[in-house]
């Protein structure tokens, strides 16, 4: 495999001004808004964008959505596609951007994901994207995203003795970071007791183990490290990436406590020539607290099964050994399927975080995770503000 480490960079980012509850904006509008900011941030003209990747949104299911979004914006790309890898898609889009440029199919690739998930019930769309596994789940009352993750939590508890209080630490730490982020929806600090006293959704997951349901969007622009030098924004170099899918649904999963992140992170570390000890922060997909805990183990920050004790004692807080989800994550900032995890990592590496107490001091390298579907899609991305020599 060609080593693409450091060959490509993120040169522009954009995020919708509003996150959380944005009933006045359509799914399309949320896309177009954050794309505009990414374009401005990169100092590019829309005519220069010749690659376009989007993540078909559940809130506006349409055939070949990417073409519609691109052309509505006035972008007429050579390379254009939707990707479908659940919450692992935002990182996969960056991966595909690098691949498209490497293959000579495009020079500047816009990657965007927006959703109107919170508002979508008010404006029903014609289509409906569903899973193929629904025949085997819904008749038994197995509906909603929490249950599959609750199965993983149950197995983690059974195999390793993990407790609800340990899972709660992830929510508490993430909320603390959100309290420092003016764009976060949930900013009131919480305690482990608050999580444990919140109602059960699907036991063993409490309400506060579960992420938000949000409207909003984010976009990034990828080009070569060479071209990045003449653009206004500080380039954030793509050092490594990987993706993995170990199973289709949980019935044939080889493990319920080791997921695709174990492979995708290894791919990313290998490409970057780095390991977990080199990461100064981690933006880890957190649809549920158990997701973050399993991913921290899969990424090698601790041994398998030790995630429960790893997240305790302030280790994953700002100022701790490994700050995790410094923006407040899906649990407390907004749920745009991991797109905002990438944007946060870029801003941390630009040292562009306000207020400054949310900035990881002197950050030079960090890792981002994506996770989707029935815990069966995973992506990893290592970013740095240092261009490898």
């Amino acid at each position, binding site marked *: 495999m060609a080593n693409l480490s450091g060959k490509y960079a993120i040169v522009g980012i954009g995020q919708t001004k509003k996150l959380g509850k944005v009933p006045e904006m359509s799914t399309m509008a949320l896309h177009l808004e954050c794309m505009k900011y990414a374009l401005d941030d990169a100092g590019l003209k829309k005519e220069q964008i010749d690659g376009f990747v989007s993540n078909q949104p559940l809130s506006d299911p349409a055939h070949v959505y990417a073409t519609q979004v691109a052309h509505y914006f006035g972008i007429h790309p050579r390379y254009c596609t939707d990707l479908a890898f659940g919450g692992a898609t935002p990182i996969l889009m960056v991966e595909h951007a690098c691949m498209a440029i490497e293959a000579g199919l495009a020079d500047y690739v816009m990657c965007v994901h927006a959703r109107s998930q919170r508002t979508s019930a008010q404006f029903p769309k014609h289509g409906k994207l569903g899973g193929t596994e629904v025949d*085997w789940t819904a008749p038994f009352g197995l509906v909603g995203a929490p*249950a599959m993750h609750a199965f993983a939590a149950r197995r983690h508890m059974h195999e390793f003795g993990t407790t609800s209080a340990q899972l709660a630490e992830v929510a508490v730490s993430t909320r603390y970071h959100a309290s420092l982020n003016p764009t976060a929806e949930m900013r009131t600090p919480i305690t482990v007791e608050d999580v444990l006293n919140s109602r059960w959704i699907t036991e063993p997951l409490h309400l506060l183990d579960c992420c938000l349901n949000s409207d909003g969007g984010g976009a990034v622009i990828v080009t070569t490290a060479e071209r990045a030098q003449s653009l206004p924004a500080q380039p954030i170099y793509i050092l490594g990436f990987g993706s993995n899918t170990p199973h289709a649904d949980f019935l*044939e999963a080889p493990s319920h406590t080791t997921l695709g992140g174990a492979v995708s992170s290894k791919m990313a570390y290998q490409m970057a020539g780095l390991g977990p000890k080199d990461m100064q922060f981690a933006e880890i997909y957190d649809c549920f607290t158990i997701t973050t805990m399993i991913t921290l183990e899969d990424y090698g920050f601790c041994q398998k099964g030790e995630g429960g004790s790893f997240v305790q004692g302030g280790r994953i807080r700002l100022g701790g050994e490994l700050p995790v989800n410094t923006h407040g994550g899906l649990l407390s900032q907004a749920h745009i399927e991991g797109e905002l995890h990438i944007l946060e990592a870029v801003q941390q590496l630009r040292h562009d975080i306000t207020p400054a107490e949310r900035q990881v001091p002197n950050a030079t390298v960090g890792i981002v995770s994506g996770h989707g579907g029935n815990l069966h899609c995973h992506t990893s991305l290592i970013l740095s503000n240092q261009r490898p020599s």
Partner: protein
Amino acid sequence: MTDYRKPLPLPDQDSKPFWDRVREHNFSMQQCKDCGHFRFPPRIICPECSSFEYEWAPLSGRAQVFAHVTYHHIYGPMWAPDVPYNVSIIELQEGPKMFSNVIGCKPDEVYVGMPLELVYDDVTEEFTLPKFRPAAA
């Protein structure tokens, strides 16, 4: 029976033979004729050896709980009378896993490894759902 409001399967070419058999109280899954592997959900190819050859083999109905969750949040009015209710990943004696409900006991009595036996729940004239209860001692 006609006022049954919960979701029902929408069988296709692959899954119809399963549901048709369950309706006849015949709990069978596809078994590869070449390597003997039992697979679920149904499909035309063996994920172990890539053989297209299979038969619908009756299962013992004996199983155990692999993982269990309890629904407290109500996702739709049709489930309101049921909460709290159990959903489990059921590990069948023959190997495959499936999602189902453990019934006949309280959700908080269910545990990983609990021995189970099959019960047929004839929810409508068209559909029977395979469910499980604690195995008789």
